[in-house]
């Protein structure tokens, strides 16, 4: 039984608005003005630059940039569930490993082409996300973080023990040469391109979502689930979809990674440090924005490689110390700090430290 409000100025406001635009993309297009379009232009420019750069750089740098692209994608994916929706998952690596193993198993055991195995890997990731998401997304805060961590560890153990299918602890190999190979190996340039596209797509997806109604719903769920429910947001659906989208991107990344590595063990692709790196990149860059995770991923991966090359055995220690320092001095993320400091002309780092202290 619907009852429409009768006439009057209040009623006019409360009548539904005529349907002017449909869908996220149309909405986004229509709201572009010269002023706020520069990120898109910048994005395209960077993408083109990265493409062109490929010809100019040595293979070593190509490898470096490829791993940077990988982490850009992973950071954006984590940001969707952790940054926007506020559910800090510490088990995203589960989807990475599942994506990797799906591709490896399909290509090795069943000689399926990579291009067929890839969508299957994504589907597997999404299905797993929905299956564990529905019960686990009822938990909050630390509990959710640890439950997802447990799920990731559990997934690794299961894969580890399905020796007949996955090769278990002995690892798995994707055939890449000769008639055995279902798909020819991409090679360094090919993977550079593949990961670049993945990174670009993940940034685009994140940007589209951020300004859409769904993006607002995610933020509302993050800020206050009760209030979100009261205004008509189906919080369960929002959380599960965010979780699934994140999982899809991560699974896709895992699939590419598997093909790139050719052979790997369960501990390689279910390595918890992937998750931690994802989280660190987003937090240090600044969660809840699109640029933050991007900057965080680029900065941290470059830093990590630099340390690895130049400091040898000290590198993990210094890396840990840097994490501690950045968390203490820039809790809101370096990008957000810079943005706010620029806007308010207040650069004092000591003041920043006092924000969250006891």
């Amino acid at each position, binding site marked *: *039984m619907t009852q429409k409000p009768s006439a009057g*100025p*209040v*009623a006019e*406001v409360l*009548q539904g608005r005529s349907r002017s635009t449909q869908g996220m993309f*149309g909405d986004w297009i229509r709201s572009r003005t010269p002023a706020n379009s520069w990120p898109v232009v910048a994005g395209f420019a960077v993408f083109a630059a990265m493409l062109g750069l490929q010809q100019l750089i040595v293979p070593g740098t190509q490898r470096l940039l490829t791993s940077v692209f990988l982490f850009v994608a992973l950071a954006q994916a984590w940001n969707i569930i952790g940054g926007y929706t506020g559910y800090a998952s510490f088990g995203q690596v589960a989807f990475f490993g599942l994506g990797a193993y799906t591709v490896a198993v399909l290509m090795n055991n069943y000689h399926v082409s990579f291009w067929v195995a890839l969508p299957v890997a994504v589907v597997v990731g999404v299905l797993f996300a929905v299956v564990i998401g529905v019960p686990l997304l009822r938990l909050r805060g630390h509990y959710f973080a640890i439950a997802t961590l447990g799920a990731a560890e559990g997934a690794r153990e299961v894969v580890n023990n399905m020796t007949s299918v996955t090769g278990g602890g002995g690892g798995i190999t994707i055939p890449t040469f000769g008639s055995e190979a279902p798909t020819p190996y991409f090679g360094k340039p090919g993977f550079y391109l593949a990961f670049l596209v993945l990174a670009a797509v993940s940034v685009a997806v994140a940007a589209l979502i951020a300004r859409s*109604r769904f993006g607002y719903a995610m933020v509302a769920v993050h800020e206050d689930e009760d209030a979100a429910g009261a205004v*008509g947001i189906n*919080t369960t659906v929002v959380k599960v979809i965010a979780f699934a989208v994140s999982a899809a991107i991560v699974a896709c990344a895992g699939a590419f990674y598997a093909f790139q590595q050719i052979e790997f063990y369960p501990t390689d692709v279910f390595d918890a440090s992937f998750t931690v790196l994802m989280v660190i990149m987003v937090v240090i860059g600044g969660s809840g924005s699109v640029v933050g995770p991007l900057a965080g991923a680029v900065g941290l991966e470059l830093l990590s490689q630099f340390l690895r090359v130049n400091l040898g055995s000290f590198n993990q220690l210094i890396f840990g110390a840097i994490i501690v320092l950045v968390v203490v001095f820039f809790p809101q993320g370096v990008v957000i700090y810079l943005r706010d400091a620029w806007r308010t002309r207040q650069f004092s780092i000591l003041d920043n430290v006092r924000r969250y202290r006891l």
Partner: protein
Amino acid sequence: MIAPVEVPSAAVLEVRHLAKRFGGLWALRDVSFSVSEGEILGVIGPNGAGKSTLVNLITGHLRPTTGQVLIGGRDVTGLRPWVIAHDRVARTFQIVKPFRGLTVRENVAIGAMHGNERDRSVRDALTTADELLDLVGIAKHANATPTQLSVADARRLELAKALATRPRLLLIDEVMAGLRHHEIESAVELIHRLRDSGITIVAVEHVMKAIVSVSDRILVLHHGSILALGSPSEVLADPRVIEAYLGHRYLDRRSS
């Protein structure tokens, strides 16, 4: 308890034998009433009487232990809050719950985006938000964050958020608390305007003067049960109500 029978109801809201228990405490006990279209029902009662519990039960934030809630004749007992919201029911929270990281305008727009007859684009929702901010009188704060608002303005924001979902039934929870004289008057005026546009209103309130001037009927809750239900003058003259609020000594003194 009457067995649930689907009696067609012309009432916008009907509550049948609603009860809620928390552990050993009955917060609400056998509460039944109905609200007709276009009516303003005031709900009053001492602290702990169960007023907010009642609102939470109606809007789906709590599940009743027993009893039924019907909106427009449809049984919505135990449904999730967003399902009920999509049945054109909106509410405000006694302790306001704004989305702190968003601007005031965006706060209202969220309701417009996800409520009934929702705006399909963010831009449309923001326009609706602007109109609603104007309606409740905080248009000048559109770009501020909720934490920067005064108490009265924060209440207005809470109201605008609820209105953005285009409800036909609005439950407001202690909107007047802590407001000054003239703020109460403008709030009362706003509530009347909302009713004139066709929204049915249930107002939980503590501030007597406001509730008496706003309500068509008043429901008095005490220790989780209905103490009285009737027109404001009837209710305020009811000795049981006087006793509950002012004590039996007062009552004795008056009658002696």
